[in-house]
């Protein structure tokens, strides 16, 4: 149960970040998920990413929908406001909160059930609006909390625990995100923290909707032979196509790789995401290529991972709405109310 608080004991030798905080300061309650759940590894990566970025936990708002994945915001950043909403509708809550106060760092955690069935509309429209939000889709291809039904992300031909095959095509969240104009699309694997942490950091820093699809195996209902979202299958078929490194603003870029294989993309706060291309000709700013690359891999039964697409030139929701560059929540009332004189003047219109 998520009400069990984790003891907040600090070992003196624990490494501290720029704020003087240790990783323990970024943790939350003890997980209530099954032992070995991929989601817990994602949580650990989230903790690591926030700690490395030295973000003050209380400046973060963490939101989620309903499902196993959506429980996880309770397990990180205990000093941040959390909001466990209704099924599939975290994007609306995040959109509203962000509209009200765009100065907070928003992280949304969802699953394939939450995002690709009931929530497919809301996720799509949050992408379309480019809400400034790190959106993690913890993808296990199965409904865990209701005990093992296929989700819309289950691959065609994959087997349920009871041995029934899934006969319908899967909805690929990353492809969907690319198609509808996402400004940041990545895919990773919960078992690959080295890859996931820099992606999460880049996603947190990206000004806009950062979509991160994380294959996160369900040990209880979808880790058997015949499942394409199992640990074994993912490890075997994972093709890392772009390796992302996150470089904070103050650090210089050093030429560590062959010039032709590295691409540096500057994020809005002056930090860099360094993309090392493992596949020839891969261009992470070419939406069509990214799309083709995912499709090609799918046809071979492979899962491409890495930061697949990034567009740092896009406008986020506040840009589209033309809002003032400060939280609407702290605007003084005097600047919002036109007053009685104006009301009397206005009413000439109604005579």
């Amino acid at each position, binding site marked *: 149960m998520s009400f069990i608080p984790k003891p907040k004991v600090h070992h003196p030798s624990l490494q501290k970040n720029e704020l003087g905080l240790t990783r323990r300061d970024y943790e939350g309650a003890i997980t209530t998920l099954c032992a070995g759940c991929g989601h817990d590894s994602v949580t650990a990566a989230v903790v690591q990413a926030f700690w490395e970025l030295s973000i003050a936990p209380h400046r973060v708002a963490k939101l989620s929908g309903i499902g196993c994945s959506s429980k996880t915001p309770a397990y990180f950043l205990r000093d941040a*406001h959390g909001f466990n909403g209704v099924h599939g509708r975290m994007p609306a809550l995040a959109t509203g909160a962000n*509209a009200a106060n765009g100065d*907070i760092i928003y992280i949304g955690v969802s699953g394939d059930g939450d995002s690709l069935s009931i929530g497919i509309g809301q996720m799509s429209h949050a992408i379309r609006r480019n809400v400034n939000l790190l959106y993690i889709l913890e993808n296990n291809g199965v409904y865990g909390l209701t005990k093992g039904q296929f989700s819309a992300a289950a691959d065609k031909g994959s087997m349920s625990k009871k041995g029934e095959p899934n006969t319908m095509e899967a909805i690929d969240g990353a492809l969907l995100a690319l198609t509808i104009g996402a400004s940041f699309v990545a895919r990773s694997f919960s078992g690959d923290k080295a890859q996931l942490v820099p992606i999460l950091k880049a996603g947190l820093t990206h000004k806009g909707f950062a979509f991160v699809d994380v294959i996160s195996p369900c040990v209880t209902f979808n880790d058997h032979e015949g499942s394409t979202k199992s640990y074994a299958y993912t490890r075997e078929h994972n093709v890392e196509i772009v390796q992302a490194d996150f470089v904070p603003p103050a650090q210089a870029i050093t030429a560590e790789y062959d010039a032709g294989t590295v691409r540096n993309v500057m994020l809005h706060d002056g930090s860099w995401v360094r993309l090392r291309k493992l596949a020839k000709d891969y261009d992470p700013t070419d939406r069509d290529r990214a799309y083709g690359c995912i499709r090609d891999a799918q046809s071979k039964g492979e899962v491409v991972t890495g930061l697949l697409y990034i567009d740092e030139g896009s406008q986020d929701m506040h840009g589209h*709405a033309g809002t003032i560059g400060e939280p609407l929540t702290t605007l003084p009332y005097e600047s919002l109310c036109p007053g009685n004189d104006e*009301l009397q003047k206005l009413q000439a219109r109604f005579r």
Partner: protein
Amino acid sequence: MDRVNDFAFKIATANGTGSASANGLIMQAIFRMGVPVTGKNVFPSNIQGLPTWYEIRVNRNGYTARTAQFDLMVALNAATYAKDVAEVHSGGWLLYDSSWPLDERLKRPDITYLGVPLAEMCNASFKGVRERILMKNIAYAGALAALLDFDTEIMRALLTEKFGRKPALMDSNQKAINLGFDYAKAQFDCPLPIRLEKLDKTKDAILIDGNTAAALGCVYAGATVGAWYPITPSTSLMDAFSGFCQKYRRDEGGKNRYAIVQAEDELAAIGMVIGAGWAGARAFTSTSGPGISLMNEFIGLAYYGEIPAVIFDVQRAGPSTGMPTRTQQGDIMMCAYASHGDTRHICLYPSDPREAFEFAVKAFDLAERFQTPVFVLSDLDIGMNDWMVPRLEWDDSYRPDRGKVLSAEELESAKTFSRYLDVDGDGIPYRSLPGVHPKGAYFTRGSGHTKHATYTEDDAEYTEVLDRIDRKVQRAARFVPAPVVRKAAGATKLGILTVGGCHAACVEALDRLAKEGVAIDYMRVRGFPFGDDVRKFLESHDINFVVEQNRDGQLRNLLTLDTGFPMERMESVRYYGGFPLSATHVIDGVKAKLEKAA
């Protein structure tokens, strides 16, 4: 019979032909003559070509309810001609376009036919199909001006205000007015016995629709986030909010001190409002019944998670798609208890645009004070029709009641913070907003939680929070606008209890019944939960007529549920056909029940 400043007429056209501007001109001209006037737009759920009517009631006594008695019909739609002829009050008049012959079979001996060759005159005077059609409307306004004795100077002034900067349009409009006016003057005995005469009864009034007024209330309340999905008849509310914000909330650099999000659906719209309310903004949505149906799940989350939200429900005729352009009070029950599980919501019921303005402001104060969703239940008639109401006033000393929100300093100095703890014994806990202080952090959830905002499946911990929320909302009964009461001249055992847009019809009915010797006390509830005064009113009468606009007597049901007053002692008077309520509906209903009782 003296029919000066006391009559009604109706204009039948097809929609999409531009008659709205002519009808608006007529309304405004009467209003500027100082004569109380009401306009009801009876329009189809369609963009072009279907029948539409505009009803105008002129009443020197200031009765603004709809009347179904029409003295004059302007019948310009062949498709509805038979129905329109039949609706004219005996002894009345019918104005028709005599460019075409009249269907003799539909002639009535008891009314006077006034043929004006509108199409013929406009075809001769204007070029192009579009202008000819548009000017035909203005020409009937001109004919009416002669027949009903409008002040032509006022009409000219209105045209100048509207088209002052477009001389070509000004000229054609004036020309069209003159065509109709001169023809009527020459051919008929002008003015008719039903006619206008200048009064001074509108100088402190305005003509405004409830959606515009509610939007203005949102601006004055300091609302900064509006999220919505287009739906008739609420769309013009957010449109108006957008317009006012562009006027009042845009800084010199063109940056906005507001955010309006057109959501993908109502499910998202309410989610955005709740997210924004959670983050600390005054946020609202405007919708109608179908939207509320969709929002139900999220509304329960806001109730249980204790998040302020303001929801305008501009009611229309249901169920399902129903009649989207007709009015009703069909959402009274749904809003009071929206969502699954045990919920109860604060509801405000404005009766006209002025109250829509005032209650909009009140709704935000209550939502933040009580940390819960608040409904403002308007309806299509209030929301979309122009009403004559007293000028809106604003008290500049007003400051928003943001409720119990802890600042960074307060959190810093606090020993502990428990989001759902009843510290003050009034059922209202303290809130913290995201991003303010680490000590304010808590987890908002729709799942079972303790007073410390931790997850629970324990019966005692769960019920403790649920019961407190019930006490909290019950307490709001003392803070919602008090009922309006009008005592009969003498003691009576009869009472009328009603809600919202029924007010104008009820007040007129009470006066007319009083003249017939039937004295009735009157109460109009303006907020839910109901206060003690509501039950006391009901108890002090032998027969209570509950007047409302829905099939099932939802207000009557709600009165019994909330006050425990027995339903048998309330007589239900209902009209739910989609038109605004008329005094006749009330009088007929009351009399029928009285006869039955006798």
